[in-house]
């Protein structure tokens, strides 16, 4: 019960917190402890009654639920009285009501108990948690305590060590102090000694000082004396300088005076000269009148002389003209004489002509001239004809000569041919002789044959024997065969050989004839060629012949060009010489310095170049790095006007874009990676037409992607 009380305590507290809610229930519950007993009792009663009544109810209740069975049970042998039945029924109803009430109460209690149980369990769980937490805290505290203890221990150890050290230090320092005190004492002794010695020194110094002061005073007095002396001397020197300047002035004046003196002397000399001049002039002036008279006289004489000269010139000219005229007239006179003579001659000849003409029957001069002209014309034509004839003759003679030559040739050929013919004829002759011989042979053979035949006939007639006859017949046959052979031979000799011979001879003759023809033709050709060559030769040889003289202007372009070229050559050669000399001279002493300088310059420039290259590469690298860091793109130049850029946040090295520089800007080249960025390309390149925007968008996208991946990880 106490436990129940304990358990109920918080619950009660909870209930007590709000008393106005249901005082009644509280009071009833407060009475629960008292009523519990009664409840339990009643319950037990009830249970007993139930147990009792279960028997009863099994008897009583069943008829209600199962009226048939009840009816069957009612059929039991003990039938109740109606009053009893009524009483039982009332009890039953009351019991039933009590039962329901109790049941409700029990249920209520049960629910309360369950709630309490749940509450208690929760409380228990929280308490358990608290307990656990307290245990944990305790453990932590213990651990901490241990740590603290350890620390304390360490600190203690440190403290002891420090104390020890302190002690050691203290002893050390004490020792040092003692030593220092000793040193101080020593120093004090030394100081005392030094003080004593210094006092002595000071006294000595003071004495010296006094002596020196005295000496100084003496010296100062001396200095004053000397100063006075100096002042005196300076005044004297000034006086001297003044005197000197005065002297200079005086010498200058003296010089000036001297120069003036000289001028004056010069002037005096001049004056003397003038005096002399004046005297002579005066003398001349005295003779002036005489002179003037003379002048007048002389002028008159001059005039007369001039007139005379003029007259003389005129006369001379006249003489000249006249002499020229005379000279001109003399040949004329001579000509005149000659002409007269000629005229006389001509007249006589004319008379002769006239007489001759009259003799020829021509009266007038015109007729004569006409006759003469006609005669001349006739003569001219004759001459022309003659020349033509001559030329013709010459041609003809040439032709004749050529023809003769040809004839000679032809005759020689003919002779050849004749000789050939003769030889042929002799051959023919020989052959004919041979033929004769052959015919004779043939005849002899025939005769032989005849005689053989005769013999044969004789022998056949005689019939001396068959063997001999056979022999003979064979012989005959043989002989006949040979005869036939001879005949054949003859026949061939007779016709073929002859025909052949004749034909061959004919062929030869025709051949020779053809040859002659061709040679004639050739001769003609050669002649034409010769003529041509002759003409050519004439043309070529015309110049050296005395018929012409080659003339040309002295200053012709060819000569000028030649001269110019010679000048050029000379100047060029001179320049070559000069250059060679310069090379020889310069090769020894000028060049090395220059070479050295140039080499140095070269070296310097190389170093400069190298440094610049290094600088350039480093700055280029730096620039690239900066670009990469700032813009997030690594830009590589992959060739002429081709650029490859790869993003900082790219997932792999193969994610790059390529651009080419065109005339009108920059264009992106299609790559595998760019194909995968269709959306961005469409939006920023095709729609916005901005590469920077596209690149930044790509950077953004890649960045977000990589950061998201990191977050996920």
């Amino acid at each position, binding site marked *: 019960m106490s436990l129940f009380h304990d358990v109920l305590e918080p619950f009660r507290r909870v209930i007590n917190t709000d008393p106005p809610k249901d005082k009644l229930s509280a009071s009833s519950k407060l009475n629960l402890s008292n009523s519990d007993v009664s409840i339990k009792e009643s319950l037990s009663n009830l249970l007993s009654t139930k147990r009792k009544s279960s028997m009863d109810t099994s008897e009583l209740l069943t008829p209600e639920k199962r009226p048939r069975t009840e009816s069957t049970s009612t059929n039991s042998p003990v039938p109740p009285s109606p009053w009893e039945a009524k009483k039982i029924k009332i009890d039953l109803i009351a019991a039933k009501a009590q039962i329901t009430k109790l049941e409700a109460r029990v249920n209520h209690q049960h629910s309360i108990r369950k709630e309490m149980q749940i509450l208690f369990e929760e409380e228990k769980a929280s308490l358990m948690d608290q307990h656990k937490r307290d245990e944990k805290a305790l453990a932590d505290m213990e651990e901490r305590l241990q740590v603290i203890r350890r620390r304390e221990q360490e600190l203690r150890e440190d403290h002891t060590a420090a104390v020890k050290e302190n002690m050691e230090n203290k002893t050390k320092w004490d020792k040092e102090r003692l030593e220092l005190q000793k040193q101080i004492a020593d120093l004090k002794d030394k100081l005392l000694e030094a003080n004593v010695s210094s006092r002595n020194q000071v006294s000595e110094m003071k004495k010296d000082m006094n002596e020196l002061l005295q000496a100084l005073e003496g010296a100062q007095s001396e200095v004053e004396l000397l100063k006075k002396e100096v002042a005196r001397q300076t005044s004297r020197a000034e006086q001297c300088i003044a005197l000197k300047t005065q002297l200079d002035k005086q010498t200058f004046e003296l010089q000036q005076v001297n120069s003036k003196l000289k001028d004056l002397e010069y002037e005096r000399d001049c004056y003397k000269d003038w005096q002399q001049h004046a005297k002579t002039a005066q003398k001349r002036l005295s003779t002036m009148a005489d002179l003037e008279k003379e002048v007048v006289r002389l002028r008159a004489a001059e005039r007369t002389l001039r007139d005379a000269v003029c007259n003389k010139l005129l006369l001379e000219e006249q003489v000249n003209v006249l002499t020229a005229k005379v000279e001109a007239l003399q040949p004329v006179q001579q000509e005149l004489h000659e002409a007269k003579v000629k005229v006389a001659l001509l007249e006589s000849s004319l008379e002769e002509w006239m007489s001759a003409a009259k003799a020829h029957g021509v009266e007038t001069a015109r007729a004569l001239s006409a006759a003469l002209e006609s005669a001349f014309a006739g003569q001219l034509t004759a001459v022309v004809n003659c020349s033509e004839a001559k030329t013709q003759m010459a041609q003809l003679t040439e032709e004749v000569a050529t023809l003769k030559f040809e004839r000679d040739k032809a005759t020689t050929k003919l002779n050849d041919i004749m000789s050939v013919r003769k030889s042929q004829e002799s051959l023919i002759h020989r052959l004919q002789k041979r033929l004769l011989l052959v015919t004779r042979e043939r005849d002899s053979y025939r005769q032989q044959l005849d005689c053989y035949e005769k013999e044969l006939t004789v022998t056949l007639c005689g019939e001396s024997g068959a063997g001999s006859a056979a022999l003979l017949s064979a012989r005959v046959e043989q002989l006949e065969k040979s005869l036939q052979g001879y005949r054949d031979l003859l026949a061939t000799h007779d016709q073929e050989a002859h025909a052949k011979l004749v034909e061959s001879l004919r062929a030869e003759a025709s051949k020779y004839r053809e040859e002659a023809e061709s040679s004639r033709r050739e001769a003609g050709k050669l002649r034409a060629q010769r003529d041509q060559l002759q003409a050519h030769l004439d043309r070529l040889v015309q110049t050296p012949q005395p018929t012409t*003289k080659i*003339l040309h202007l002295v200053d012709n372009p060819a000569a000028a060009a030649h001269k110019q070229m010679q000048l050029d050559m000379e100047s060029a050669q001179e320049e070559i010489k000069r250059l060679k000399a310069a090379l020889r001279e310069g090769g020894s002493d000028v060049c090395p310095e220059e070479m050295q300088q140039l080499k140095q310059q070269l070296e310097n420039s190389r170093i400069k170049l190298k440094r610049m290259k290094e600088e350039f590469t480093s700055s280029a690298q730096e620039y690239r790095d900066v670009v990469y860091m700032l813009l997030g793109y690594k830009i590589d130049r992959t060739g002429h006007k081709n650029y490859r850029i790869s993003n900082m946040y790219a997932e792999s090295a193969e994610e790059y874009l390529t651009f080419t520089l065109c005339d009108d800007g920059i264009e992106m080249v299609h790559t595998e990676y760019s194909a995968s960025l269709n959306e961005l390309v469409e939006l920023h390149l095709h729609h916005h037409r901005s590469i920077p925007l596209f690149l930044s968008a790509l950077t953004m996208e890649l960045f977000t992607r990589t950061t998201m991946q990191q977050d996920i990880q």
Partner: protein
Amino acid sequence: MSQQQTKNSITLKGSAQIICEYLRFAINSVLFQRGLYPPESFKAEQEYGLTLLISEDPLIKGFISDILKKSEEWILKKEVKKLSLVIINVSNKEVLECWDFNVQYEEGDVVLSKEKNEKVSSKDLKKIQLEIRDVMLQVAATISYLPLLDCRCSFDIYVHANPECNIPEKWMEAAPISISNAQNVQLKSFSTNLHKMDTVVTYKLMD
């Protein structure tokens, strides 16, 4: 140019002038065709119905006019037989080419000459000019077969005159021309009936 006194009659002087005019054009044409002087120093002129190029260089102009003035005098006196334009290699003075202009003297129209009391020709001027034109065309065509002049060259004009002729001032005798391994090409000739002009080019055949 030509003194055409009456219809179709050319005097001796006029003929000589025609000849000299032809020589002037022919010489200039050769100088241009053979490339002796730069083409920009030549000026085009219309003559004989052709466009011919005349040198503008004052030195060359003066030289040619001096020569032709004297030559005209000589032609009138029948003292010239031939004019030669020689092209010389400057470095060794070798004659590489020679253009001979042979002058032959003809009688002209005898009957008309008698009438006019001086030698005249009755040949039509237009016909003469046509003949000259043919010759000039041939001169221009020679470039196709003449060898290339690939060295520094200059030219000179030699007048082949009668031996009795006096040598005027500033003139002198020259050595005869000889070309080794020479080739001759005879061009067409033309005539005024008083003078006949044969043009022959002789050149050194290169192996």
